[in-house]
């Protein structure tokens, strides 16, 4: 009698994983890409920390999140220690309200952690870039717990070498690209899914043609490579 009670108590808990059950009680937001939604079982997890590990900057890692930022709407979106300066015309063309965007620069790891936690706790959408001295497991766990209490999503960009260390985050995605506008996503950690699942995502038309310096101008219209921003709108 007592045993069944304990089991039923366990089953009602949110964090009990029930085998291959497809009804995971998770809240998600749509990523804007159907195939990615499928891979992530609904979209980016809400109330959790997501870690994105791009092989290098510039392969479209931020464009992946632009639909989420756009949908976030009236709430603040905080960019903590971005690697470069955000370029306003491109963001505004993507339909992002610039007055809801806040860029924060931290001076030391303590400030970084504090700002990240404050942002998560106040319900803002957090995009954080890891500092050169990578945040410790304990720091990440603190953020993951804060995110679990809140109702917003939080994203952390880490260099790919961080894959060597364990991480308490809910979702870990490795991003790489071999071709312009083509991105290969590899799930490195995800609740309820075995790691290693891969997805080839097309962010636009691929192009193989290169132009030699001697042959400039490259007489092609710019629209030739689809603007990722425009694609997201469709």
């Amino acid at each position, binding site marked *: 009698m007592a045993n069944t009670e304990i089991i039923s108590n366990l089953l009602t808990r949110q964090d009990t994983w029930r085998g291959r059950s497809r009804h995971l009680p998770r809240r998600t937001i749509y990523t804007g890409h159907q195939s990615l939604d499928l891979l992530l079982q609904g979209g980016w997890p809400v109330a959790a920390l997501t870690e994105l590990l791009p092989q290098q900057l510039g392969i479209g890692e931020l*464009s992946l999140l632009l639909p989420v930022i756009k949908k976030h709407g009236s*709430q603040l979106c905080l960019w903590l220690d971005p690697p470069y300066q*955000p370029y306003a*015309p491109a963001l505004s063309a993507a339909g992002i309200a610039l*007055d809801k965007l806040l860029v*924060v620069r931290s001076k030391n790891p303590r400030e970084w952690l504090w*700002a990240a936690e*404050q942002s998560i706790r106040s319900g803002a959408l957090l995009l954080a870039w890891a500092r050169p001295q990578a945040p410790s497991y304990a720091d990440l766990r603190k953020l993951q717990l804060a995110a679990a209490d809140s109702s917003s999503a939080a994203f952390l960009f880490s260099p790919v070498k961080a894959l060597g260390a364990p991480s308490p985050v809910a979702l870990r995605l490795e991003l790489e690209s071999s071709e312009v506008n083509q991105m290969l996503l590899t799930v490195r950690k995800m609740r309820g899914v075995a790691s290693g699942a891969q997805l080839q995502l097309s962010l636009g038309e691929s192009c193989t043609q290169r132009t030699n310096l001697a042959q400039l101008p490259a007489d*092609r219209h710019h629209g030739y490579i689809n603007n990722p921003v425009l694609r997201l709108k469709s």
Partner: protein
Amino acid sequence: MAKHNNLAHDIWLYLHFPLLPLETLLPQLPREQPPKPIAIIDQQKNTQRVLCCNNQASAWGIEPNLSISTALALCPELVVAPRQIELEQQRLQQLALLCYRFSPVLTVHSNCGLWLEISGCYKLFKGYNSLLQQLHNRLQEQMVTAVNGIGSNPLAAQLVCQAEFQIQLPSTRQIEQRLFSTALSKLNTNARQQQSFKQLGLQTMGDLLALPRSALSRRFDRELILYIAQLNNDKPCNAPRFQPANSFRDLIQNPQGIFNKESLLFPMKTLLQNLCHYLMARQCHCREIEWQFEPLIGEPAQMRIQLSGSQNNWSSLLTLSRLQLERLELPRSIEQIILFSDQFVEAPQGMGNLDLFGDNSCQQQSSELIDSLNARLGMEALSQPVLNQDYLPEQASTLVTPGKQINTALDNRLKAPQPVWLLSEPAPVQIRNQQLYWHQPLSILSGPERLCGNWWQSEQQRDYYLACDSRGARYWLFRETSSQCWFVHGLFS
């Protein structure tokens, strides 16, 4: 008696603070156990006389109007402090602000008293007795001794002021009886007048008011006649109404000095609570507060807290002050803390929390986040990207401090894709083996798009190209037409 109807229903409350001169100075005097007898003295016609004293001093036989030498003879260990009228008036204004929450019809009497008209506040407080009870509690929290008198007009209320605080509203009959039985010696008139009262055999107010008006005007001067007319509600009393000041300034002194930041928080909390009373009375929110921490000798430390929204909540103001205090260099010992604010905005209409769609609370949450980041990390750590009317990318997109943003609707001039990241300074690109090289070999995908900016200032003409590296990352390059040098200016991400 002919009475104005509207006046007849007025209920005036006179609050008197008999120990205010003492209670104002009490926080500054050294606290000792057991408490010492203390007396406050005041200069009256060449002699210094006792104005008021505490219970310990009364036990020694000290009472008001004793000369200082007599008092010291009675009690050699008496602590004597001179009256500080300026501080006392400041305290009285604070108390007026507190009472302003109970009634908007309020007049300050310079001699440690306040008048309140409370007939309009019956419904709000669900009865006069509950109003009186709440007022009494509030005043006790402020550590002031208060007594009151109740009458149908301000003068009557003052005249019948009791020796204690009455929490029960007396009936109309009782009020009248009390007024009539008041001794004429309490009346504030000259000795000649008192003498003529005696000669006429008048002892109480009742005796005086029973006389016909014509007889009175023949015997007494015009001042007394006016006074009686006002007391009878025949003429209104015109006293200036209390209005909260235009700016808020309050201070707490601590002669012993405060040596660490933790112990600053308690006085800061008191000051912020006072500020919030003030804001509530004026029905506004503040946008900025200023702290000043003054040592006995040396330069004071200052700290300004700017809010992105507006606030009237002391606890969040305290949290912000505390965060900013951590970054502030303070003098070693702090003697005086001053809080100042004069940046106010009208309180937003309606209650934020009652908003059906929660949009307002979300706005508030964001501004709270900005404020706390601001307080902890400093103004320079926060910025927002903003669009400008300019062609050169580094000028078209700049970073400004939050809240300073002007929303400009711009047409998207470039048809070509634009990068999300902009390098703060264009980075020069090398050319190796007929190939562009920045960290790794780059190859051009498309271009150019020509941009020229500020041709009247400098010769800036750039051809922008889209490039990529072997691993699929895309870059925004340009070639300066004058020098033919290549630069990386942005990253697509």
